[in-house]
């Protein structure tokens, strides 16, 4: 028994952060290797079916072909491919329809954000994100083999979703009252003009940060809130921080390798389900660390909700499954 979906984003982890922030080089062949390791686990444990998102590099197919004969059913899901991040969104909704027991993603915060967009707000698909880079908060920095074990334990019913998963928060972005986009970790308004190369590495452009979690041990802008009002996944609140040219002085790890002095003009709790305005009237909005939207007009608001995906707690799943004799011969 058990059905697992895999979304391996071939475009993650190659942006300008490699240049400005010593970002790691995580090439697609390495993603192929991770998928190989995961598929080997599924073969060994005995999963029924593994579904893949199609991608131009054919990460999953390359992994599958390298393994040769496998006893599980393997299938690339049928979808139109645009070779953009929309593919991950589309694939996520197909996996939800296919009722996979676990959806594994290989990518960064950006990949998981677009995957979450494809899932319905109360989706019951357990999401198990594996980081393929250095600049991530949401996905786990974890060996694929271990992640695959947790996915298998869920898929085989050794641990139930209720026991092994919890629902995460998200930031919802509204324009004139209409939902436009979401972020899983943080939404940042920037006083700049262009989306350009997408990453954020000039702290002087950051105006406001709205984050679902704020941890001093995170990388990126959400860490600023972590220094002021530490907030984790289970806390029922978000954190708002406004930066400026004066105020409380802090050092924060904006991107890997870059600790910058910043001035915090204001910070406060964001209660769940309450709308907050974005104070800039034109600028750029970054979602989970990437500049995504440039805006010139309209009323922009955010709200933090607990409508994010169901996240697999890998440690808990593996602890419970080991207590229950999973993997014992």
């Amino acid at each position, binding site marked *: 028994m058990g059905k697992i979906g895999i979304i391996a984003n071939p475009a993650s982890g190659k*942006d300008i*952060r*490699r*240049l400005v922030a010593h970002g790691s*080089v995580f090439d697609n062949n390495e993603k192929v290797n991770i998928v190989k390791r995961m598929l080997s686990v599924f073969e060994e444990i005995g999963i029924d079916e593994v579904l893949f998102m199609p991608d131009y590099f054919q990460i999953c197919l390359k992994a599958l072909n390298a393994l040769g004969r496998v006893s599980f059913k393997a299938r690339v899901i049928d979808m139109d491919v645009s070779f953009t991040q929309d593919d991950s969104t589309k694939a996520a909704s197909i996996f939800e329809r296919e009722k996979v027991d676990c959806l594994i993603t290989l990518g960064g915060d950006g990949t998981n954000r677009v995957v979450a967009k494809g899932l319905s707000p109360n989706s019951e698909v357990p999401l198990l994100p594996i980081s393929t880079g250095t600049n991530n908060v949401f996905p786990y920095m974890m060996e694929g083999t271990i992640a695959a074990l947790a996915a298998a334990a869920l898929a085989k019913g050794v641990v139930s979703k209720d026991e092994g998963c919890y629902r995460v928060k998200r930031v919802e972005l509204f324009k004139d009252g209409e939902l436009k986009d979401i972020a899983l970790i943080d939404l940042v308004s920037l006083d700049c003009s262009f*989306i350009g*190369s997408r990453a954020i590495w000039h702290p002087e452009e950051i105006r406001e940060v709205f984050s679902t979690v704020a941890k001093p041990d995170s990388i990126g802008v959400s860490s600023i809130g972590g220094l002021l009002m530490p907030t984790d996944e289970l806390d029922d609140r978000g954190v708002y921080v406004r930066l400026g040219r004066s105020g409380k002085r802090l050092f924060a790890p904006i991107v890997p390798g870059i600790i910058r002095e910043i001035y915090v003009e204001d910070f406060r709790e964001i209660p769940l389900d309450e709308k907050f305005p974005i104070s800039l009237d034109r600028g750029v909005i970054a979602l989970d660390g990437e500049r995504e939207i*440039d805006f010139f007009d309209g009323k922009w608001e955010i709200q933090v909700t607990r409508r994010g995906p169901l996240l697999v707690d890998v440690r808990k799943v593996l602890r419970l499954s080991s207590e229950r004799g999973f993997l014992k011969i």
Partner: protein
Amino acid sequence: MGEEKLWLDMYISMVRIRKFEEKVVELFAQGKIPGFVHSYIGEEAVAVGACSALEPTDYITSTHRGHGHLIAKGGDLKYMMAELYGKKTGYCKGKGGSMHIADVDLGILGANGIVGAGLPIATGAALSSYLQRNGRVALCFFSDGASNRGTFHESLNMASIWKLPVVFLCENNMYGISMPQRKGMAVEDIADRAAAYGIPGVVVDGNDVIAVYEAVKEAVTRARAGGGPTLIEAKTARWRGHFEGDPQIYRTPEEIEDWKKKCPIMRFQEKLIKMGILDEAKIREIESMIAREVEEAVRFAEESPYPEPEEALEDVYA
């Protein structure tokens, strides 16, 4: 505001490349331009984004598809067009043609008819800057196809061990004539190859002039500060064939149409309109200004004399 002027100049430069290239295509079809022509249409954001991040004294090496690079680095349309016509007044006195235009005074170390040949030359220009301590950076335009050549390996290796001030900018337009990149290499991103040389390698949207500009600016700053080379891969597409007359049996018309929807000039134009930097009147003004420049270049080329045959014997040696 300084930045607005920069953006406007970038826009104008892209339009200048497009209009020049459209005219070249037309003149080539009319038989007025001899030889080969490789059109840069569709890739304007790469040349302009990159050259806008350079100082006038910085160097570039260009490619067979080089008109855009030369214009973005400040090349004069008149002398370029005259060279394409094979006239005495051209940049190379009619000895080079489309694939060999150079202007060392503008830091243009030449287009190049040999794919991948610019890489070691740019490395040498960077070595020269380093030895002369003159702070200049060399930027090397090359293609996805060129990244399979040995010059790529030797140059990136040499530049990285000596931390030379050079930026390797790969214009990945996905085809080496008919060879799709996916068949020609086992990695999807040429930028990943940087890891083999211990240097940063980044991918940018080559149809977004600002994305190219930001990345090159960072790489140039790093190079000038002694941080060494960077490999930047700008993903883009040429709208026309490898050469004028290429039947393009290796790709579908739909593929080209899809890329036209991502036109780098239209994208930037829409953005500048939203920002209030451009409006319809201003766009018309720019277009007619460029049209005049191009017409003037054509007139200059057509009215210029051919070189005397005996001039073929000059300039072999200094």
